[in-house]
């Protein structure tokens, strides 16, 4: 415990905060707070990437920290806020499963992914490899969030936060991906959100609501 150097401890702490935020998002009832939580998650991610960059001296990690900051803390939340204003959808998040049950499933997922991560992280040589389990857990929790929400915007946020978890796994376990891959993913996410935004408008025009249950009517043979 005290054997870990300071930067590793801070990264561990940030990992824990990431997980905490993932749980907070899982239980959050308001869309706007959900976006704020997502921004906070991005911030934690950017800080941890920065620390890894400072410690390992890999210049491209500074870049990815900067991109994370710009994209996930500033740009995407801004786009989402705008989207919500334009769509005028400030409703509370409706959920398919109640909060305690969701949390319970979440805990089970955490146990599962921690167990999954133990053998993998033993292969990794980095000092912060223990955080791999947390990264996996955040990915799973975001997935769970996408499953349990009914409306489109929370689902998109869940998708984005899943990417956060993946990114964290990459930086913590292997000290980052090649720059090209990172840029590619970042652009993918950005473009994905823009396209989804367009889709939202389309969906709403079609059904006068963003409730994804309406999409169920699209299946054939009814």
């Amino acid at each position, binding site marked *: 415990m005290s054997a870990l150097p300071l930067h590793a401890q801070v990264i561990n702490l940030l990992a824990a905060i990431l997980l905490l935020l993932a749980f907070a998002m899982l239980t959050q009832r308001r869309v706007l707070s959900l976006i704020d939580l997502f921004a906070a998650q991005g911030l934690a991610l950017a800080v941890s990437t920065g620390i890894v960059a400072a410690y390992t001296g890999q210049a491209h990690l500074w870049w990815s920290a900067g991109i994370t900051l710009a994209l996930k803390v500033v740009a995407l939340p801004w786009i989402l806020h705008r989207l919500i204003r334009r769509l005028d959808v400030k409703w509370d998040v409706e959920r398919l499963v109640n909060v*305690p*049950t969701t949390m319970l499933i979440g*805990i089970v997922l955490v*146990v599962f992914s*921690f*167990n999954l991560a*133990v053998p993998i992280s033993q292969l990794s040589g980095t000092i912060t490899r223990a955080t791999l389990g947390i990264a996996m857990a955040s990915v799973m929790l975001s997935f769970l969030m996408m499953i349990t929400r009914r409306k489109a915007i929370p689902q998109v946020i869940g998708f984005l936060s899943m990417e956060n978890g993946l990114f964290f796994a990459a930086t913590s376990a292997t000290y980052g991906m090649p720059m090209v891959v990172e840029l590619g993913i970042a652009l993918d996410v950005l473009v994905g959100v823009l396209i989804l935004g367009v889709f939202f408008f389309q969906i709403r025009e079609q059904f006068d609501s963003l409730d994804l249950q309406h999409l169920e009517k699209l299946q054939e043979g009814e």
Partner: protein
Amino acid sequence: MAVPTLGLIGAAIVAWLAIGTIGLAAQTRFGFVSRGLFPAGAVAGLVLAAGAFCAVGAPPQSAVLPLGLPDLPFHLRVDALSAFFLLLLGVAGAAVSVYSAGYFRESEGAAPGLLCFQYHAFLAAMALVLVADDAYAFMVAWEAMALASFFLVTTDHRIAEIRRAGYLYLLIAHIGAIAILLAFGTLKGGGDYTFASMRAAAPSPGWATVAFFLALAGFGAKAGLMPLHVWLPEAHPAAPSPVSALMSGVMLKTAIYGLLRVTFDLLPAQAWWWGVVALALGLASALFGVIFAAVQTDMKRLLAWSSIENIGILVAGIGLAILYKAYGKPVLAAIAMTAVLYHAFNHALFKSLLFLATGSVLHATHERSLGRLGGLAHKMPWVAALALIGVLAIAGLPPLNGFVSEWLLIQAFLFTPTLPQSFVNMLVPLAAAALVLTAALAAYVMVKFYGVIFLGRPREPGLAYAKDAGRWERAALAALALGCIVLGLAPSAVIGWLDPVNALLVGATPGPGHWLMLAPFGEERSSYAPLVVLAVVGAVVLLTIQIVHRLWHGRVRRSDPWDCGFPLQTPRMQDTAEGFGQPIRQVFEPFFRMERELPSPFDAKPRYRVRADDPWWAWIYLPIVRATEWAGRLAGRLQHGRISVYLTFSFVTLLALLAFVR
């Protein structure tokens, strides 16, 4: 000089059988049976307890009785494990016998002499189960115990519901007995059916696993482990209260004894994952039991569900002990085992106490539904005061005994990070969470139980005529309450005394205790000194009373309740049992099968009805019933009523068998 402990125990068993027979002979002489025979049974119980007390530390004694089938004599043996459970049986049995001397009335369903016979046969059978040293004697005693308790459960056999409960009990008891029999058959290996040869058999890991799970199923069925628990909330309340006390307090422990005997004594080694299964099953039972206890409206059913909870805690502790033992940490296994043994004894004391208290309430009011009780603390001060001790103990509050076993079990849980496997490590926080949730819910249940029965205002006018319990009953309740207090205040002495049992089961003992303080791993790590806590809290209470009365005054004015100034107050405005359980029903809704009937707004006499049923019926039992009926119908097609067809079937079967064994 060695005490002939087995002789004392045997004498007590013979005495019980003799008392039962005398009772059978003196069928209708009620006074003699109740004032003469039951106290004599209590004395025999004390003799048994004395013998068992000496036997815990002594080397095992054994005997062979030339009874039973030719070439299959009964082997008897008393070692530390059976002595511990015999002590439990003796103490609880003696107290319940004293209580019964004052309890049974001439109007109970069965004749007093018959009841006396069944009761003492039940006690003797339980003692025989504990001293049996071969599978044959064990099964004979086990079946005798099941039968005796079946007849006791159906004492009020004129009520259809009770007959049904008894039938269900008998059915599941026999399914369990088959599993136990198969477990013994698996354990036997090449030798004969004595436990000694089973110990020597050393089965392969696969067969050992089969034997363990058969034993878990068989003894679990008797103990009320989920999902074989459905008989328990039916049968325990149906029996007369002293019998409920014996069944919950002692008979369930014989099943725990059997599980311990097979797992730790007869099987040479344990696999770690048995422990995980036992832990999961135990905690699930505990949580399920306590949640159901919280919504019960019948006081004896509430206690029966609480027994399921406590058995769950015991099995979870056994699972933890298996885990530690399998990973080669015998000292930690000893701590977990100590917690299990301590809790078994505690549960025998406080559950008997509470069941007996409900018996007194039942006799005083002829009412078991919590919705029609209330305010009995004024009419029955003795029962109320003694039941309060039992309630505080079962809720796991310091400085009483329930807290000690809870404390030990939690301490044992906190050591699981030392286990080498990450999967098990991760399970532990969840298990600890389930355990503490159960403990907190138990307090909820007990506040409901006590508050609704004894506190508040009487909900029915008839309760004004309730009388306190008689001398016999009070004496028994007081003895059990005293046991709760002593076990709560002097844990170190008790744990030191348990060393031989631990050595037998897990091959290690917890660290030497301090007389005042419970500190199994040393004071630095954890410690608990109930006497000091009691002394400090007591001193603060007395000092405060003194100071407040000296500095100011002690004047008291009596008046009507204030209740925010609402002028109209009726007893029906208090929380009912349903009301008190309602939050639990709402939070844990997925656990129940609920049926609701909501009144329409235009009803002149609105009625709201809700039923919260055990979902296991629908999950397991009803499908089995349907499958059986389906198979029965299929078999029914063979019936034509013509003899020659039946004979053809038999003939074909015979030919097929002959061809098969050729």
